[in-house]
């Protein structure tokens, strides 16, 4: 191997000087990027802590931070009841949904190698929406706690269908096939959802309040019920992050280097389906978080999935909790749904980042 630019005259690799020289012809990750990553991670963790406390303290009735701590310490006096019975479950739910959507978005963009790869893209959100509409329209469900499991099941089945179709034929689930199959399943189920909603006004009436995406009025035990799914999904996503980096090289090169492309992509899809299914079931289709957060986070962490996935999860938690808190404040005494606020905050932010050239096409 000739490592110098000198053509053919000396085979420098055998000389002692070359052996002692640092072996790295590939540019190492610049120190600045390493620092930026650490800073991003620290800032995100701090922001998440702030968002959690804001979510506990702020609302139609503001609670002093001291009382929040008292409530967390076990007090049941005065405002502590509000915090313990209403705000803690809602915050836990928001945290789970945000973490799940952020991580799912990062994984979805990696396995489809498509910047449009939002967690709803492999059919999960559309499946959940169809299941909810069917549950209301055909099985006369009336309470949100009834159709949460419908949503989860519908989302998972739709995701599986999209992955199966995208995965048949030569090369398995190539990114383009997977993305197209997901979009086709989404549009297919969307047709039936529209039909159910159009044919019956009562279905539309209930469906539209689920479809807007909100954390309000959910049962207190929903968070603990969904937590195992979210945690399992997060662990799977984090465990896959190193292998997802190999996928970024392109399927052929990754295979040549010994990466198991099909297995990795299939496991990634499982993570996306579980995480998104749980999140959509709990909060309705708030998929915008999963779409925007990875793009924003990538500007600081670069495309390395080992940093991108955890930072996206944290960022998702911050955005969703912040949106929920803002929604409680701006429209007092009413509330603005988190699904609306995330999009209204997230979209201009993303647009400005693009305009300033902060987001470049990543190498995949």
């Amino acid at each position, binding site marked *: 191997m000739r490592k110098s630019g000198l053509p053919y005259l000396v085979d420098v690799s055998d000389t002692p000087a070359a052996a002692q020289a640092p072996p790295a012809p590939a540019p190492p990750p610049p120190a600045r990027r390493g620092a930026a990553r650490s800073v991003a991670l620290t800032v995100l963790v701090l922001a998440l802590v702030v968002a959690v406390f804001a979510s506990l303290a702020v609302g139609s009735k503001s609670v002093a931070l001291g009382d929040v701590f008292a409530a967390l310490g076990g007090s049941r006096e005065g405002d502590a009841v509000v915090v313990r019975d209403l705000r803690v479950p809602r915050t836990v739910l928001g945290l789970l949904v945000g973490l799940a959507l952020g991580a799912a978005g990062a994984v979805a963009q990696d396995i489809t190698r*498509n*910047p*449009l790869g*939002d967690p709803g*893209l492999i059919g999960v959100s559309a499946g959940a929406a169809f299941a909810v509409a069917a549950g209301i329209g055909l099985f006369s469900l009336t309470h949100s706690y009834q159709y949460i499991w419908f949503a989860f099941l519908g989302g998972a089945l739709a995701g599986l269908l999209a992955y199966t*179709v*995208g995965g*048949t*034929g*030569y*090369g398995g689930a*190539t*990114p*383009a*096939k997977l*993305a*197209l*199959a997901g*979009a*086709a*399943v989404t*549009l*297919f189920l*969307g*047709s*039936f959802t*529209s*039909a159910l*909603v*159009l044919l019956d*006004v009562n279905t*539309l*009436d209930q469906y*539209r*309040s689920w*479809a*807007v*995406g909100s954390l309000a009025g959910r049962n207190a035990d929903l968070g603990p019920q969904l937590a195992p799914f979210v945690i399992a999904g997060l662990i799977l996503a984090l465990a896959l992050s190193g292998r997802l980096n190999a996928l970024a090289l392109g399927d052929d090169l990754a295979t040549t280097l010994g990466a198991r492309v099909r297995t990795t992509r299939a496991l990634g899809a499982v993570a996306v389906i579980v995480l998104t299914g749980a999140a959509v079931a709990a909060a309705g289709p708030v*998929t*915008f978080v999963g*779409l*925007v957060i990875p*793009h924003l986070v990538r500007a600081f962490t670069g495309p390395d999935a080992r940093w991108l996935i955890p930072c996206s999860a944290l960022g998702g938690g911050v955005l969703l909790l912040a949106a929920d808190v803002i929604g409680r404040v701006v429209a007092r005494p009413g509330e603005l*749904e988190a*699904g*609306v606020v*995330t*999009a*209204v905050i*997230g*979209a*201009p932010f*993303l*647009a400005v980042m*693009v*305009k300033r*050239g902060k*987001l*470049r*096409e990543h190498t995949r």
Partner: protein
Amino acid sequence: MTAPAATRRPRARALTAEAGPLGLRVPVRTALTCAALLLAGFAAFLASVVMGTYAVPLNDVLGALFGYGDGAADLVVHTLRLPRALTAMLAGIAFGLAGAVYQAVTRNPLASPDLIGISAGAGAGAVATILFGGVTAAGAGTFGAVPYGALGGALLTAAVIYAFAFRGGTITGYRFVLVGIAAAGALAALTRWMLARADIDQAARAMVWLTGSLNGRSWSHVEWIGYALLILLPLTLALARAYQLLQFDDATALSLGMRLHRARIVLLIAATCLAAVATSVAGPVAFVALGAPQIARRLAGTAGVPLVTSGLMGAVLLLAADLAGRLVLAPTELPVGIVTGAVGAPYLLYLLARSNRAGRGG
């Protein structure tokens, strides 16, 4: 793509025609696909005029067309079926072309007005018009000011997207897609929010429009989209060569002598206007703009997204879907937007699953 492979492979058969500086080379399979689609479109068009709750014999249709028809058939054909079929055909062409241009320029098979925020902008504009503009007409056909609201919403959204995606003298596909999905997300959330707060009757009316329907389209719709296509169609087709080159990477396109920046922007603007006009007359019909180019590409067996074939495919898809929507549950009519997704998406899934040869997968 190595040189030996290229020499070993027999050249794809093609029809060539040259006239002065213009050279046209169309692969045989693409030409055959186009011919088949033209036939299918013609059949679907005739069927849309003939079939329905009141069947008009073909002879009477011809009579109505050439001005010697009598009362009932003449009325049905002239005021109901013909404008509706023409609207479907023209909107289908517009959706198909718009989708093809978006997918080619951004080099992303998912890019379509549905996902890039143009449809979402039109939807938000239309729903706002319905809710705040006091559109109270009971019939789903009379939408009054709604098409203008939709057109305004779509063009305004497009302007905002271009303003944010424009940098360094051009718009790259990546920036366009990113800003587009941001706009789509925000506007879709806004629409859902308006729907969740609206009076339920108005919400139901808005849902019909948001699904996409061709019910009760009149000659004014045909004129409107017809004039728009008269300008936009030649403009888009004139850029067909640029369109082909843009599907390569930037360096290749530049080295082939392309003025990349200008062509990309003009094509995107033309496609946006096509999508906006089509959406304003038919509503944000799902799937056509996304699916038609992908189906066309697989039928024609081309490497990139074919332009003309996509437009024809869009017309066939919309005509056939509207016909199916009128006949399947007759006398109840399904909005065309439900049928396009329900029929077109499984077909695309079938094509995806069937494409099991190397190079056909993506």
